[in-house]
């Protein structure tokens, strides 16, 4: 297999999972995205992306304890793996590398 790449939404969600630490589940992730970057992501899209990240090995999931809210249903908590962190770091470095090459023109 060649180098793995992350899509834009995958990267965003992976980062958010990294931010939320032990409290990353579907609703929390989209709420965080809404509040931080003011972007609306549907619950379903978030779930699908999280499962894809799990398949790729960048996050892992477990089912948390039951709470009284949300009809007593349990949450699926996602945590970022070291592979996920390494991926984010590599992507960030690539970006910075490239950004340095862009001529820094002053906006008029």
């Amino acid at each position: 297999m060649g180098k793995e790449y992350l899509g834009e939404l995958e990267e965003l969600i992976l980062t958010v999972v990294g931010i939320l630490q032990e409290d990353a589940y579907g609703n929390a992730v989209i709420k965080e995205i809404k509040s931080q970057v003011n972007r609306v992501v549907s619950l379903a899209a978030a779930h699908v992306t999280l499962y894809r990240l799990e398949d790729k090995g960048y996050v892992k999931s477990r089912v948390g304890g039951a709470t009284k809210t949300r009809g007593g249903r349990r949450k699926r908590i996602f945590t970022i793996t070291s592979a996920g962190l390494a991926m984010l770091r590599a992507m960030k470095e690539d970006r910075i590398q490239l950004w340095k090459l862009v001529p820094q023109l002053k906006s008029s």
Partner: protein
Amino acid sequence: MKNNSDHPVPPKWAIRFVGWFCPAMLYETIEGDLIEQFEADVDEVGERRARRRFVWNVMKFFRTGIIVRNKLSPQLNSVDMFQNNIKVAWRRLLKDKTFGAINVLGLSLSIAACLLILQYAHFEMGYDSFYKNAKQIYRVTTNTYDQNELVYRSALSSQRVAPALKSDFPEVIDAAQLVPTSGWFDCTLRYERVIFNELSLYYGDASFFKVFSFPLKEGDPTTALQNPYSIVLDESSANRYFGNDTAIGKILRLKGSFDDHDCVVTGVMRDLPKDSHLDVSILLSLSSLDHLPHKEKFDSYTYVLLAPGSDPARLETKLPSLVTKYVGNSAANTSIALQPVKDIHFSNDLRDEPKPGGNESVIYFLLTIAAFILFIAWINYINLSTSRALERAKEVGIRKVSGAPRSQLITQFLTESTMIHFISIIFAWIILITISPAFYKMVGLPAFSPLSEFHLNKPEWIVLAIFSAGIFMSGYYPARIISSFNPILVLKGRFSGSRKGLVLRKGLVVFQFICAIGLLTGVFTVQNQFEFMQQQKPGIDITNTLVIEAPANVDSSYLTKLSGFKKQLQSLSLVTSVTTSTDVPGQRIGWVGDVRKEADKSVTGRNFAIHVIDTDFITGYKLNLMAGRDFQPADLPKGSFGSKLESVILNEQAARQLSFNYS
């Protein structure tokens, strides 16, 4: 809609819907997230809109990433393995190009040969199966007996059969007659200045279209052949006379030995497909024969369409009584039988067929050869792959040490062989498309594209099954051998190849060689036989001989015109001789008659073929006269045969049969 006054709940049916499509593994947490979102929405935008949003959110979960996740996730790994297998197989192929080329070349050549034969067999075996009711169509054949001895089996039957069958037996839906004109009625059709000899002209009626479910392109099939001198042409004949003009209503002049009359075109039918035993291109209404006093003497091809589900064998038992009823005393000499229309092409025991038939045993023989070619290729592949097993031993050893189960290794090698097969099939297809036009020209068949004629019927499924099984088996056996290596022995370098399977391999090689040698011997034998046949001297000189068919309409000026034509030809410097004859050597002689010695009045005559020739025939074809002399101009008949004592020349066989002493 508020059932719980203090506590708004999302629509129940939507939750049930999530439960229906969502994999069990994910269901609880997804439902929880959805409910949480709903509760947040209630606080934010109120219950009504929250419910709507809930449904919308549920719908968004209805996608493949969720629905099939549970089913696919265990296999995701094997998708990766599959991609890897293909990559490894491709690299193997490129690494050892000679080996890969031998494999692909061998397989693609044999698959191409096999497909070519299959295509031909498919065409031959599909004869007459395109009629809508092909299974219910039977042809009436006639057996003639002489003192209880079967002397003549004919594809023709009396014109009286069809009406009798239709009126006497309810299971006969319809009966069609086709009266052929070849042999007794040589005719031409003329439209303005366009004139052709018509050999595939038949007399028929509307039942023809019904029995064979043959639609007319133009004209009404029920009335087209009703009136005398109505004519239905096929498209290519219509094109010959009228080009692109409409044919309907045009007048054609029919001229022949028995008739000279205007005919009106009442219909145009599609050309009969090449895989039909019939060669009808022009149909004249049967009623056009009515004015002939001896019209019943002309036999016809009779076809019956039986009702679905009726038993042809039962109908056949009732046929003798039909013959007795209509023919009377002489019935003992004649019997009629039914023949399924699909069997006609391969039945070679009947005379008077409209077209020469095919040979079923040749087809099966070819199919056997095709199978052998394919088996040889597969065996070859097995042997090549197993013989290279040692090279793969290290790879297998490493893979096994890294934890590859045997099934995975087998899958890997199967992928490899399947890939080689697919590449070969693509090449075979290319070969097939390039050479099949030349091949069909060689065997005298119409060219057809392999794709358009291919329908997946039962025989095709069988072929596909054999093919797939062969691809699987030829890959599976080497895969088993290669994957059986003991990794420890291999990696220690103390591995010297497996002895098991050696006997089988040797056996396969021997079998392969036997097949190959057998096929080669067969080909050489056939070729030698062919050459031998072609080198035989036929006793007649036909080199640089050109045959010109005379116009079929004969009138009083015919002989004068003919001799004028002959003289003109003879004046050309490149023409050494010109001769006229009723038939051409190699053709079946049309005129047959009883001949006996004038002295032996008590003896019934024997059947002889009579060939009418002129004074230049024997010198022109360089025939040897054993005794007697060639015809002189004075020997030619005056006006018609029998007006004087005619001269004849007998061939050796005839002289012997009539017990003449000629030496």
